[in-house]
């Protein structure tokens, strides 16, 4: 397999204790069927799907239980066989927060019967239909951001995709689900990548993996040599957080900086997580829609940390039980990794397609104190910022709600990676302040847009009014001219009549 040398070094970033080896000692645990599944109808950024099943109805594995109504939604499938026992609102973790979502509750029967024995699925004829196939297979980005894969592949129609990036960097502490999947199913991942590459017509594909995953790198390299894939290369990245961020990967691999108001697809790049590539393989080769994912269950409060292939809708408590339960009281339960993950207040919440990791942390492994010292302007935050922002200045503007300054300092480029927080000797909750302040910048931008639009409207109105005035004047001139013309003619006629009369009287008189 050919190696790809990254074009650039990551801007900023920090080296963090990985805390990954705890969960990579054992293979992925498969075949866990919890008694109840709470499947949210919203499994991706964008609209929820609409349930198409009724309470009391039996379902089989792979059966569509909720259908996307819009093109940016995705279908939701039953992860196993069982009976629908409720369709109601539950708290569900997705998109960096917990929100109430309509969920379909399935009582499982343990038989795990599939809807039908399906083999490979034919590619649809047109590109748009093929993309629709992916949405109907419920495939979303499994890196944690849960962006609809179909929506992402649509991209900008007039821009050709020149590079497919398969993201196996997995830079965030604690998370090891991609690492384990690459170790155990490298051929399936590469096959899925090849399908994606074919679907978007990308001439090149790079799979990016951080160097702290030598076993994954070996497995992928072996599999690539075996499959003999063209145009596939591997990029080994230094282990620096957040090099696995989408924009960061594009920066490092292609040397292109994608600003916040644009997408990598605007520059001809498509990034997909290794888990997503695996899901694409499962759908097109085995006919299995995406209804389960690998979740890392770890943290010092978990008895036997490991990765579990969890059905979507599995309550987190069942996942932790499958890993030997709690070994001590967890100080904090985190959905995601320790940098961008968010705290859950209870373990009854169910796995969504965004759940890449669950950390049950002991008190000594997480930030616990809220004490803050004054900023000493050490600038460490700006040194590690992957967006080259000045957090020490931004935080002042954020606390003063100074939207103007926040805009000037480009707050909207903040990717909320948390690097500034962990290096701050004053322990200022910078990322939290920035997240809170972002609506200010947005509202300023909206205000600006509104004012621009009003300005535009007024100008158009003025122009129209002026045009109308000019037209009216012209009309008047025209009428005037027309009138004067008629008057002149009447005059001429009168004069002619006069002359005729004169001539007549002259002749009569003579």
């Amino acid at each position, binding site marked *: 397999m050919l190696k790809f040398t990254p074009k650039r070094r990551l*801007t900023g970033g920090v080296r*963090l*204790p990985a805390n990954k080896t705890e969960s990579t000692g054992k293979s992925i645990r498969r075949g866990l069927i919890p008694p109840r599944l709470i499947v949210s109808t919203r499994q991706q950024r964008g609209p*929820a799907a609409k349930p198409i099943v009724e309470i009391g109805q039996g379902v089989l594995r792979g059966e569509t239980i909720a259908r996307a109504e819009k093109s940016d939604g995705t279908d939701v499938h039953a992860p196993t066989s069982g009976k629908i026992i409720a369709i109601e*609102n539950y*708290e569900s973790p997705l998109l960096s*927060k917990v*929100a*109430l*979502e*309509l969920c379909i509750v399935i009582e499982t029967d343990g038989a795990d019967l599939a809807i039908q024995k399906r083999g490979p699925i034919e590619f649809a004829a047109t590109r748009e239909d093929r993309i629709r196939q992916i949405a109907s297979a419920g495939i979303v980005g499994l890196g944690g951001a849960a962006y609809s894969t179909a929506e992402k592949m649509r991209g900008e129609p007039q821009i050709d995709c020149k590079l497919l990036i398969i993201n196996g960097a997995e830079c965030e*502490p604690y998370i090891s689900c991609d690492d384990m999947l690459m170790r155990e199913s490298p051929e399936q991942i590469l096959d899925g990548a090849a399908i994606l590459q074919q679907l978007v017509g990308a001439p090149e594909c790079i799979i990016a993996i951080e160097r702290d995953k030598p076993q994954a790198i070996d497995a992928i390299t072996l599999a690539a040599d075996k499959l003999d894939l063209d145009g596939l290369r591997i990029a080994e990245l230094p282990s620096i957080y957040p090099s696995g961020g989408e*924009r960061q990967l594009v*920066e490092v691999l292609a040397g292109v*900086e994608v*600003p*916040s108001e*644009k997408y990598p697809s605007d520059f001809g790049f498509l990034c997909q997580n290794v888990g997503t590539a695996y899901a694409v393989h499962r759908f097109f080769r085995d006919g299995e829609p995406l209804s389960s994912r690998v979740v890392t269950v770890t943290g010092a409060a978990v008895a036997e940390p490991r990765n579990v292939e969890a059905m979507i809708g599995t309550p987190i408590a069942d996942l932790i039980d499958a890993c030997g339960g709690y070994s001590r009281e967890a100080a*904090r339960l*985190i959905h*995601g990794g*320790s*940098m*961008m*993950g*968010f*705290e*859950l*207040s209870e373990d009854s919440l169910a796995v969504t397609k965004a759940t890449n990791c669950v950390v049950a942390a002991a008190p000594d492994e*997480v*930030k616990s104190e809220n*004490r803050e*010292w*004054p*900023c*000493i*302007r*050490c*600038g*460490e935050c*700006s*040194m590690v910022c*992957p*967006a*080259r*922002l*000045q957090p020490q200045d931004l935080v002042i503007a954020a606390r003063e709600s100074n939207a103007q300054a926040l805009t000037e300092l*480009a707050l909207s*480029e903040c990717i*909320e990676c*948390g690097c500034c*927080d*962990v*290096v*701050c*000797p*004053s*322990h200022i*909750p910078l*990322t939290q302040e920035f997240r809170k302040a972002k609506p200010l910048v947005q509202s300023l931008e909206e205000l600006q847009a509104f004012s621009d639009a009003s300005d535009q409207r007024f100008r158009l109105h003025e122009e129209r009014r002026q045009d109308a005035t000019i037209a009216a004047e012209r009309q008047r001139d025209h009428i005037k001219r027309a009138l004067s013309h008629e008057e002149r003619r009447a005059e001429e006629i009168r004069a002619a009549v006069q002359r005729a009369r004169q001539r007549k009287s002259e002749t009569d008189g003579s």
Partner: protein
Amino acid sequence: MAAERADQNVMAPPHSSPKPAVPVIMRRVLYALAPAAICQTWFFGYGLIINFVFCALAAMLAEAAVLKLRNRPIRDTLTDGSALLTGALLAFAIPPLTPWWVPATGGVCAIVLAKQLYGGLGKNLFNPAMVGYAILLLSFPVEMTQWMPPRMGDIDFTHLGFLSQLGYSVSGILPAELSLDAMTRATPLDLVKEGLRSAQTFSEVRANSLFGDFGGRGWEWVGNFLILGGLYLLYAGIIRWHIPVAVLAGLLIPSALLHLFDADGFASPGFNLFSGATLLGAFFIATDPVSAAATVLGRLIYGVGIGFLTFAIRTWGGYPDGIAFAVLLMNAAVPLIDRYTRPRVFGHD
């Protein structure tokens, strides 16, 4: 549908433990100064320790008083170690044979005028220790120049014991048989300044027994320990390399060029490196984050500025050393430097 839950009971990300807090950093900088302090005490007497106590005590009392006036929590601020560090840095710059009110005035001025009047830690424009030093140097020029010769076998030196040093600090009375004039001696920087001004060559000035391989004897050793402390700060990630390297480059490059051009008329770069407050300034004073530039390019400009201004003041100015004034001048330029060296934001033109 998406009703976001109130999050008063959950911690916001990131959850990873942060780096050591401000008090730990201040404490580590104090540790880094300790070897040089012991060395300076060995070569120049107990004055440093006594001055440090008066400086720090006055600084902390003054800080507590201002905090009380400002209705701010006193304990949290006093325990952050910043006033203690200011006291320590200032004590290094005060001659050993000084009455107690000199370090005390310095400590009070540093904390009240340079720090608390601006709003406390993190808000000050100027380096507090250097403001304190500048005020002392301008107000008490005699007391601030009474340096002593180093404890060296072949040099005629008289150092006081701890108790008589303390007694002198408190009462201003020397033991009966001693006089200040007999005990104090011009510093190598003074000798070079005076010598070059009175048409001596640099090598003639250096023939004095107070001079060692590069700078003044004793001072060279203190310098070595300051370098050691600075390397520890770099290793511990408390400072970055940009400012010390830039300060030294800004001082040593012009010094080396002019010394090459005219070895008699200009002091050698080695002398500049190991004299006065060069190493203390490069590693411990210019690197004060609050009053230094925050961007990478800004730090290089700031450091070079300090180095070059120090060189200019030492070579052509009215004072033998220039670190304090150079730092204060560049402090004033920091807001401008930071504004114009802001790096290009990711994805922006």
